[in-house]
């Protein structure tokens, strides 16, 4: 009994997936699904089971409706293989893509404006408004954020242990020294994304501290790390923001396999 119920639920879920994701409605074997429902119908005695059967019928009928629409859309001139469009998009210059849009675009003409009535209302409101210093009590100050917490503050709040932080920092520095000049991403990426974030943070600390240099190739965009012996003068320092993207990390991990 449970097995047959599972089959019904599977049909319902499959139909819902097709509806939601817009995949090919012909992926559902309508005849086979109806045969299954027919086969189990005499066994249903409880209301819940009959409701489940009715839901399955309703979902299958929605798929049949989608199949009708699918055939209709494919028979019109709009039907083009998505793969062909994908290829075209990949190979076309952005200018050509934009030109195609401009030639098929008939924008709505619309303007924003202010009427004399609204302008007068605004003026009247302004004239009645008391100076801000007299209305200060109406606006309690919001919670003042002090911005990002410094390492010192984190240590003072016992969120971070100074010894532990220095220990981790030394480990990363030792690794840079051991590996010499190395591609930034090869160095920072770890098996876990969380560890990669921690390592990127510690590396940025070492770079800011002048212990490790970050070299950026302006043509290829490649970044390299290498240990520094002396300190770098602050005049020669530049700021660079590097974002650690989870999707990129996943790609890297897949390539590692």
């Amino acid at each position, binding site marked *: 009994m449970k097995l047959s119920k599972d089959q019904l639920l599977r049909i319902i879920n499959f139909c819902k997936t097709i509806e939601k994701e817009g995949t090919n409605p012909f992926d559902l074997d309508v005849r086979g699904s109806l045969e299954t429902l027919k086969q189990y119908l005499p066994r249903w005695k409880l209301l819940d089971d009959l409701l489940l059967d009715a839901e399955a019928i309703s979902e299958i009928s929605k798929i049949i409706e989608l199949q009708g629409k699918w055939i209709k859309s494919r028979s019109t*001139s709009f039907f*083009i293989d*998505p793969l*062909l*469009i994908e290829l075209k998009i990949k190979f076309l210059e*952005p200018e050509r893509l934009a030109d195609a*849009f*401009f*030639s098929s*675009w008939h924008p709505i003409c619309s303007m924003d404006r202010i009427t004399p009535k609204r302008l007068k209302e605004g003026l009247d409101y302004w004239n009645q408004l008391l100076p801000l210093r007299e209305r200060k009590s109406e606006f309690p100050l919001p919670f003042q954020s002090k911005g990002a917490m410094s390492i010192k503050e984190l240590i003072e709040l016992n969120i971070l242990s100074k010894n532990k932080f220095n220990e981790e920092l030394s480990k990363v520095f030792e690794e840079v020294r051991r590996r010499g000049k190395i591609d930034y991403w090869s160095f920072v990426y770890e098996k876990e994304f969380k560890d990669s974030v921690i390592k990127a943070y510690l590396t940025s600390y070492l770079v800011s501290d002048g212990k490790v240099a970050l070299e950026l190739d302006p043509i290829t965009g490649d970044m390299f790390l290498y240990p520094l012996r002396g300190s770098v003068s602050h005049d020669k320092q530049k700021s660079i923001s590097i974002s650690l993207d989870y999707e990129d990390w996943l790609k890297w991990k897949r390539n590692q396999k």
Partner: protein
Amino acid sequence: MEEESKVEKNMKKAAQLLFFRRHRLPGVRGWELKRAIGGDWLEVIKLLNLELERLGIEVKQISETGEENEEDPEGARFVALLKTPLPPKATGRRIDDIAILSATLAFLISKQGKASKKEIEELLSEKFPRWRVGPSIDRYLKDGYLGEDEKMIYIGWRTRAEVDKKTLLDLILAS
């Protein structure tokens, strides 16, 4: 003579309602035009359309989803559309951003109107920097050119109203 001036006055009123945005969305509802102009409002719109045609502008009656709606004039939205294509420089947007919209729409049309956001972002990221793709899609979602429902992106009302989908596909395929 007096009759003529009344019609002209109504046409001016209709033009103001059509061109100057009063709500979040551009255009004006049929019932708003009826209230402002009176019983012969549809005739006034037809006359205004003839006048605007000379300037390359067309009044179109669209539904909530942006499709042409001839059935329920009072419930429909009336918008003024440019008949001739706009020169690229007149948009004020980067070519890259327009190309992103063009590619997204062509892909969506080929996928029967909707595709997952991830699929679109992956396709676009092969051609455009990821940091440009995300905000661009968000802006077009806000403008109504695209719609979003549970991580699925679909063609928005504004695309249905403004873009000749067949021409767009034909041009991309012919390029």
